[in-house]
């Protein structure tokens, strides 16, 4: 009995624990360690030679160090709260707005609905990474020559774009789900018994829509992680700082140790010191797998299948 349950839920429990520990360790590092990451500038080898960073993964540095000698495990943990936090925020905003827009859409007359669907059709086909990259890049390129815009503004802008670009297809999905609930028999019963529109929404539609939203939320979480990963590889830090990678290009460090910035700043080492970019990519991978395991479990419990 116990074993069976563990087999069913074990993966989900482990995944949840992993995400929780990662965020807690990250927050803890800021509180008790001032957000410091240990740095090793020089290392004495066994035969007395002096070694310079980057050091490959070893017993001393579990995941190796970057070219400045910062411990990569430390950097990745320090960055976890930013990467996961901002992703949670984006996924939440997407789900929240899609939820209400989708609800409103079910009251839109059918001809208008069809036209709106046509107008936003391209949003569900065009490559999101490319569109997001061009929009973010071109906007931030303009400001790069002048005094830099404050960080919170750039970050807010990126969040806004990443939310808006996904809203149309997601809202249509939520509208479809809402419509499906409205067509159920108990909704007829509620109408016949004289339930007002407000009563129908709060007592019947929303309770049935919440599990769907939960699934959508985790899915958007995974999707946002993937987009950040893509943007990081393309050299776009969170907050929108552009980096031109090249031997003589300017070097910009990721201020918040945030993962996509770690990838963007170090991607040029992929061939010479592959572990440097692979550590943040690995953390993305682990987070994605954990979230997907959770998603599978929730889907199994609520019986909803994921969209898209």
């Amino acid at each position, binding site marked *: 009995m116990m074993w069976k349950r563990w087999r069913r839920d074990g993966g989900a429990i482990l995944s949840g624990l992993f995400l929780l520990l990662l965020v807690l360790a990250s927050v803890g590092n800021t509180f008790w360690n001032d957000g410091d990451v240990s740095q090793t500038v020089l290392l004495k080898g066994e035969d007395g030679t002096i070694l310079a960073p980057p050091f490959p993964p070893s017993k001393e540095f579990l995941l190796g160090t970057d070219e400045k000698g910062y411990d990569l495990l430390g950097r990745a943990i320090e960055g976890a709260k930013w990467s996961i936090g901002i992703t949670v925020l984006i996924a939440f905003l997407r789900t929240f707005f899609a939820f209400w827009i989708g609800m409103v859409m079910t009251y839109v007359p059918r001809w208008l609905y*069809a036209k709106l669907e046509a107008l936003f059709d391209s949003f569900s086909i065009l490559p999101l*990474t*490319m569109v997001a990259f061009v929009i973010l890049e071109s906007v931030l390129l303009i400001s790069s020559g002048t005094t830099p815009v404050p960080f919170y503004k750039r970050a807010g802008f990126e969040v806004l774009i990443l939310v808006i670009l996904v809203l149309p297809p997601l809202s249509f999905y939520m509208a479809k789900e809402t419509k499906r609930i409205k067509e159920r028999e108990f909704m007829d019963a509620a109408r016949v018994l004289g339930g007002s529109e407000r009563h129908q929404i709060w007592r019947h539609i929303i309770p049935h829509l919440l599990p769907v939203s939960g699934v959508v939320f985790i899915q958007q979480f995974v999707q946002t992680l993937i987009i950040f990963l*893509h943007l990081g590889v393309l050299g776009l830090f969170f907050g929108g700082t552009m980096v031109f990678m090249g031997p003589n290009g300017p070097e910009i460090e990721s201020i918040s140790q945030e993962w996509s910035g770690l990838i963007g700043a170090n991607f040029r080492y992929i061939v010479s010191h592959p572990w440097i970019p692979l550590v943040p990519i690995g953390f993305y991978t682990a987070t994605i797998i954990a979230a997907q395991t959770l998603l599978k479990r929730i889907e199994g419990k609520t019986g909803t299948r994921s969209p898209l």
Partner: protein
Amino acid sequence: MVKHLSSKLFNLLLSLFGIILLGSIPALFDKMNLSFSGYIRSIKGVILVLVGLKPAVYGGMAGLEKPIFPQVFVHMGESGLILFLSLLAALAVALFIVFVYFLLPGWSRKGIAFGLRVLDGIPDILFMIGTQLLVIYVFKETGLNVANVATVQGERAVLLPVVSLAIPTMLMFLKLLILRFGQEIEKDYVVLARAKGVSPPAILNHHVLRNVVVSTVYYIRHHLWFILSNLYLVEVLFNVPGISWFIKDYPTTEVFTVALLLIYVPLYLSFHLFEWAVPGEWRHGG
């Protein structure tokens, strides 16, 4: 029929307008400030270009502009080639694996399903980097250049971009095919065929495959944005002179919008042709 067609046409025009609105968004934010006049100016410019009243040019410096039009098709062809080849390869490999999967005994299926779940969590970017690193590693160890890692002056890299785009696409197809095959072999006609003594490979090949494959191909519509995102990354990572290259080097809203339109319109047309030519029962897998 005429009414149906004209409504389709109107919808297409609406979609194109949606893309123009999307493509001009970079002009909406001028130094992080909202600039509606810039946005409208950009939209006007794009429309003028599309109608043919304004020459469609790219290239930053004044006087050195080159016309967009014949040139962009070369880049488009390159992107299209990689997309098409990898979709084809992905579908072929996925079909092969799904056949093997359903002919294997139950216990080994569980193992494969587990492996698939793990592979599914791996971001596609790792496959792209992985293939690159693998080829470099093989070259370092053996001196054998298996494939070009990137396109450099005349030396085209086709194999690696196709392979690294095909792997995640193949996984997607495979996941879907296993689900659909699983549903299909529960159906009565399969039970009947089995009772009559038709061999399992023949059932899969003659009945299940034909009922499932069209709807699977049609289903990629929902994943296209993701496949195309991967295509964009593949083009950047392998330095493929595809449509991404064009956008990357000449980032005006006009070039961006034209590129978006050129990605969207062929896909739109092929999907609608598909819908028109293929009966609904096939598309939705009856």
